């Protein structure tokens, strides 16, 4: 499949990097490469934070271009990734059974200056791996029953020539695709991606009234699974082709020797990995709780089972159900990041 998105190609052409420890600094320039600032180097040697990839990239960029926040501000902006519906606490009490919906993850291959391809086999494989990892991770929680919902292919296989099974499989695929679109909007409009007004794509009302939804059609799944809530997941992994990997090795060597990167070797960015999860109300389809994990720079890969286990643990770390301590279920942390709010953490919700 050829690259259907010329803008993404343009983006890749504009990526350059510099620095250490696998941290990538993307800049939009004409062949200039930049070195990482000290603060970022320090971060790269510690445990990688979990955050939406865009947040990291933009913060890296802001710092690298000299107009970024301090390390403290940066870490503060990165850490909270949970979003919660205003009625989450009331709803939680009635949730005893959760159906784990089939993951909607996709693996893409980034080629050398060329198209991005969907890797069908890898995609099918990671969906299976993710499904297993999610069940294992949530299986540690007591007090709630987690029921895996069959994947569309399983539904189809089980109900061969059964129109109802075909309909259900289509409904599953449609809802998974819808969740992907909803997740994209959540990441774009409820996270701060850097400093300054130009990088603030947040719709602030969504932070106090997190009202994203998949709609009431999800009832059909909850009825079939006899569940009080549904767990949707989606992910994306961008892996480099063999040719690109070779270039990733060669470019730092060449640029280091020739000094093309203003004295610093140039590192091509590895592909990003994102994984998001949502607890969904069975009656309204409202997203009650949402979290996203991922790191730009190749630390995680959905094609590596160990990495999937780590990523799953990270994204479900603050999951509000089960015996684990309930972590923030409101969006207080964001209030402190809004303009005119206190830097000390005592911010007020936007009015």
């Amino acid at each position, binding site marked *: 499949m050829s690259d259907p998105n010329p803008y993404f190609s343009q983006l890749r052409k504009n990526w350059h990097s510099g620095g250490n420890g696998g941290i990538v600094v993307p800049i939009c320039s004409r062949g200039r490469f930049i070195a990482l600032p000290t603060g970022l180097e320090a971060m790269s040697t510690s445990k990688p934070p979990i955050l939406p990839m865009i947040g990291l990239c933009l913060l890296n960029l802001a710092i690298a271009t000299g107009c970024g926040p301090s390390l403290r501000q940066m870490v503060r902006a990165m850490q909270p990734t949970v979003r919660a519906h205003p009625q989450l606490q009331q709803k939680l009490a009635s949730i005893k059974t959760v159906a784990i919906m089939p993951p909607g993850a996709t693996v*893409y291959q980034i080629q050398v200056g060329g198209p991005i391809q969907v890797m069908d086999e890898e995609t099918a494989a990671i969906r299976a791996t993710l499904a297993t990892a999610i069940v294992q991770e949530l299986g540690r929680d007591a007090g709630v029953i987690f029921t895996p919902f069959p994947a569309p292919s399983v539904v189809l296989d089980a109900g061969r020539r059964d129109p109802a099974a075909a309909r259900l499989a289509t409904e599953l695929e449609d809802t998974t*695709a819808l969740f992907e679109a909803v997740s994209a909007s959540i990441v774009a409009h409820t996270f701060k991606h850097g400093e300054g007004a*130009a990088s603030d794509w947040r719709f602030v009302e969504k932070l106090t009234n997190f009202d994203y939804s998949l709609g009431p059609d999800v009832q059909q799944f909850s009825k079939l699974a006899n569940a009080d809530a549904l767990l949707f997941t989606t992910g994306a992994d961008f892996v480099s082709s063999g040719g690109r990997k070779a270039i990733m090795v060669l470019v730092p060597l060449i640029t280091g020797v020739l000094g093309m990167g203003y004295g610093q070797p140039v590192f091509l960015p590895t592909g990003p990995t994102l994984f998001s999860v949502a607890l969904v109300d069975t009656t309204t389809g409202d997203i009650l709780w949402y979290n996203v994990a991922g790191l730009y720079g190749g630390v995680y890969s959905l094609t590596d089972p160990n990495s999937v286990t780590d990523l799953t643990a990270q994204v479900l770390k603050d999951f509000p159900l089960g015996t684990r301590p309930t972590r923030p279920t409101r969006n207080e942390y964001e209030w402190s990041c809004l303009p005119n709010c206190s830097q000390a953490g005592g911010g007020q919700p936007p009015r």
Partner: protein
Amino acid sequence: MLKLLQNSLEGAVLDCRLGQLTPARAALVLLFLLSALSGCAPWVQVEGPYRMDAQGYEANLPAGWRRATVVSDSLLLTRDGVSLQYIRIARIAVGDELTHTKKKFAKRMSPQDIGEVELEEVRSDQRMRNVELLENVPLQVAGFPGFKLVYSFRAVNGLRLKRVHYGVLVRDRVYRIQYQAPARYYFEKDLATFERVRESFKVTDKP
């Protein structure tokens, strides 16, 4: 540079509206744009009458929605994010090539012919799969004879989307007034809001 960014954003928006972008890809495009933009907020809240002088039209914008400030050649609005719904008003000059079919509108084309050209353009877009025409009727738009198309399609990632597409030729420009959202749940949710915007649409360009 600014033009390049505007074009990029519009491309990203286009891809988003087609469901072309997965969250990660959308994020990457977002990164590109954000990293190069500076100064103004990319989205501003809107409500009430809005005049797009550069484009020669005006409309009454719904409360609770936001307008993209870095898109200059059309009016782009959303409430939850462009992947979940958007209203877009744009115009194409007679004689300009369309992106996919390379066809051009002509001054004396009937609304029905313009609708056919628009439909062909949609069907030629490889990112829109299984395009299904649900409605194609002549209709007055902004007081001029126009058309209304309703169609559904699947984006590359499988998302089923639905779009209402009004069009009208006024003097030497074709105006497009579109609303798009995922067919499931989101389309119906804001359809009435869109219709109010469409009813308020007026061409302000003088001959």
